[in-house]
């Protein structure tokens, strides 16, 4: 039984005005037909590049925007069926940590006010109970109780992110949406926060939706990974299977593109990356709605890729992949991409 169930979710932003008053810009499809489920206490990574729609999907789950189509369910909550008001119980159950540790904490509030806000609003805590719980939360994320009296600007990026995590954990949520929680941090701080997030998950049993562009970071934290490209979820599966033996050509390119500090490994990856990419990245505009969004860059592209988006099928590793190579082309049928061309793949 899954905790979160996202079905056929689409988010379309209306196009704004153009340069001239009667011009209308085309609508922006941020998310199209996304399916995603997260079990209780599971951590799922949502990986993609900027503009892939991963943050938009997270914001729909957080009810910071309203999806155009599809449903979101969390436990007994029919999230897409909520009216204008979001029930308190749902706010309690779903919390968020954003990427930017500077912008995500109100500069005009003390850490105490920031951490205590969800406790006061959702748990009705007051007085000594509120103070105790605030101090306890600070301890949980490796900060001291006396830090509560300070303002956000007095902390480093890593410490601010710890404060944001403490605030998010205040209501003991069932699901924590982590939107690029470590990508603004330095390497040495980043590993500290990753370890903290892993420890907190063991201790609190919260499920994580870990949104990030860095597949290597996600692999450390998550059991399952969903890969997004240009508004579509193109592949899902167990973290190790996705990272070692992907079934979608985009996933393979993404993995080959993560630079490795070992110069020898990196030389191999560079040649693999060159084989897996086609054309110049970013040279083309938005892909047509009914096409595979990766068609313009895919080395295995076929005619059908330009005219229809493939139906996702189950992979051998236990996930899903949406690629014509599996259904109409060489009929990989969910087996890893490495079986197609052993020279260019295998991570």
């Amino acid at each position, binding site marked *: 039984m899954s905790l979160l169930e996202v079905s056929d979710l689409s988010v379309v932003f209306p196009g704004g005005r153009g340069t001239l008053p009667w011009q209308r810009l085309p609508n922006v499809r941020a998310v199209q037909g996304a399916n995603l489920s997260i079990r209780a206490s599971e951590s799922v990574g949502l990986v993609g*590049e*900027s503009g892939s729609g991963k943050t938009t999907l997270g*914001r729909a789950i*957080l*009810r*910071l925007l309203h999806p155009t189509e599809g449903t979101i369910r969390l436990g007994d909550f029919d999230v897409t069926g909520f009216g204008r008001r*979001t029930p308190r119980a749902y*706010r309690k159950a779903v919390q968020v940590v954003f990427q930017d540790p500077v*912008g*995500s*904490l*109100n*500069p*005009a*509030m003390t850490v105490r006010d920031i951490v205590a*806000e*969800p406790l006061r*609003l*959702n748990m009705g805590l007051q007085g000594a109970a509120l103070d105790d719980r605030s101090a306890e939360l600070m301890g949980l994320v490796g900060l001291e109780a006396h830090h509560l009296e300070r303002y956000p600007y007095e902390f*480093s990026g*890593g410490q601010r992110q710890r404060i944001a995590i403490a605030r998010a954990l*205040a209501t003991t949520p069932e699901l924590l949406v982590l939107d690029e929680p470590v990508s603004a941090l*330095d*390497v*040495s*701080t*980043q*590993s*500290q926060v*990753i*370890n903290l997030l*892993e420890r907190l998950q063991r201790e609190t049993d919260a499920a994580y939706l870990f949104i990030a562009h*860095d597949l*290597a*970071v996600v*692999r*450390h934290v998550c059991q399952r990974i969903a890969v997004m490209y240009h508004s579509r979820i193109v592949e899902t599966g167990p973290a*190790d299977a996705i*990272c*070692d033996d992907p079934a979608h050509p985009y996933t393979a*390119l*993404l*993995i080959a*593109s*993560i*630079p*490795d*500090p*070992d*110069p020898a*490994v*990196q030389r191999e990856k*560079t040649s693999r990356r*060159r084989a897996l*990419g086609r054309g*110049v*990245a*970013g*040279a083309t505009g938005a892909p047509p709605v009914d096409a595979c969004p990766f068609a313009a860059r895919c080395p295995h592209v076929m005619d059908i890729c330009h005219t229809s988006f493939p139906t996702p099928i189950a992979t051998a590793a236990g996930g899903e992949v949406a690629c014509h190579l599996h259904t109409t082309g060489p009929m990989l049928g969910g087996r890893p991409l490495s079986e197609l061309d052993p020279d260019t793949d295998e*991570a």
Partner: protein
Amino acid sequence: MVGGVYLLVVVIVALLAPLLAPHDENLATRFQDILFNPSSEYWLGTDHVGRDIASRLMFGARYALFAGAEAVVVALAIGVPLGLLIGYFRGWVDAVVMRIVETVVAVPAIVMAMAIIAGLGVGLTKAMLAVGIVYSMVITRLTRAEVFAAREELYVDGAIAAGASSIRVMFRHVLPNVAPALIVQTTLLFAQAILAEAGLSFLGIGAGSDQASWGRMLRDAQLSIDRTIWPAIPPGLAVFSTVVAFNVFGDGLRDAFAREARGGRIGVGDVQRREARPIDNEGVPVQEAGGSSASDPVLTVRGLSVAFPRLGTDDDVEVVSGIDLDVGRGEVVALVGESGSGKSITALSILGLVPDPGQASASSIMLDGSELVGMPFEQLSRIRGTDIGVIFQEPFAALNPAHTVGRQVAEPLRYHLGMSRAAARARTIELLAEVGIPDPESRIDAYPHEFSGGMAQRVVAAMALACGPKLLIADEPTTALDVTVQGQLLDLIGDLARRRSMSVLLITHDLGVVADLADRVAVMYAGQVVETGCLEDVFASPQHPYTEGLIRAIPRNVSRSGDLPTIPGLVPSPWEWPDHCHFADRCEHVTQECRSGAVALTPSATGLSRCVRAEELALKGVREEAS
């Protein structure tokens, strides 16, 4: 400051007017004392009915402040909630309210106020109520604009996700952060309200005859203007100077708030010549400093230091101390470090672009045989445009949105190389093709916003390459780009360096990028180079514990369980740097010796290392980690 002191005096006079005033402000002491000049009894003379002008002036301060306060309070009471409401919810209410606001603001404020007074009736209180209503439009518009900006902040989303109601978000999260702009505007409106009071009272629809306001005094002075102009001068000057004081005070406030918000501004500072301190070269032959084996260095930096004045003190804080660096011809050298290590400041200093209050000094910066330290500014900026090319992190910050990319790439060709328009255009197309922009003949006339981030960074690369630089400084060139785009840009930089035998100084925090591109690496920590050497050697067997820590802390695409190795603690701030090893407090191998004095950069097994225990420690590199 001056404005504030003056306003304080006005407030004190207003409060103490009954005690300070030598005469009654409304009744003449002796009825025959009409239109007296200033004397010891009447300090500023008397008006046409014999009232003491000095006393009236003091009470006038009361009316001025009262009138200003009333108008401002009314304006805030209407404008702030209305602005918050329409700014936060937008939609049709916003559209309707804004049309009303625009209509009201289109009419001169005092005329609008007179129209409202026609409805409310005359009198100081009613007049200032009318002025307040008019000014509330200004406040509404300002609040709405500020709320629009604040509404996009992540902490607002965070508060909504935490369950805060709309009212709470507006008043608790948005309002405190729009307050600075409102405070400044309020001060300026206060000044305008005093002017409006003077104007309305002068016209006779403000203060009554028994209210000694400055505007009323001007009106009374006008009745005897054919006999003497003196009674008009004190209230005129009072209005004038109070309004000026409010404006000065408001501008001061604005600057104070802006200073708080301002980040590092890039100004231009020369690099001063200074002999290197002995510690930097101790035991290191100069030609080996920086660990270069290059016999033909394009760039040699010796003893580069950068200091900034520390806020709130008279001390300078060194953020870069004694950097030595060599880049050989055609060589890619990576300067690696975390934020705060001083790597970007080092690069800017080489360019002679030290951020504003900073002071850079070096014993020598040689670029292909010419000494850059002490070079006149014009000559240096020519070198920046021709011999050194630069790529920064944000491509869109480096491109002017108002000009076509072709024009921007051609500009250095025309300016530095004196090419004709046609020749520059032809060369620009070649350059765009060289950096891999498809269809350069048509893309040359496109504007930056028509490019994706990766494509825009290619345009920046074309600009940097325009005059055939000997050295390319690339400061985090791929950090803002997507990972699949990053690879192609790294390939491009590598290809260009090889094809043109161009040297590259690559500044980055990403060890993976270093491994992809660099021949040699210099690791920086807390303002110092702590280790240098060949890429393969340094990453395979690091000779400094910080390098080891960095390599091990990176999450790599391998299956593993358990915690990632970390470097405990935080990068210390520049004013916390010790005299001994900067890394000592975070190092697991620390001994007494590490804290006994400054550590020099000395030859190690693979290059140079700033660690006293480099030889005895068997530190782990990338290979051990991968297995």
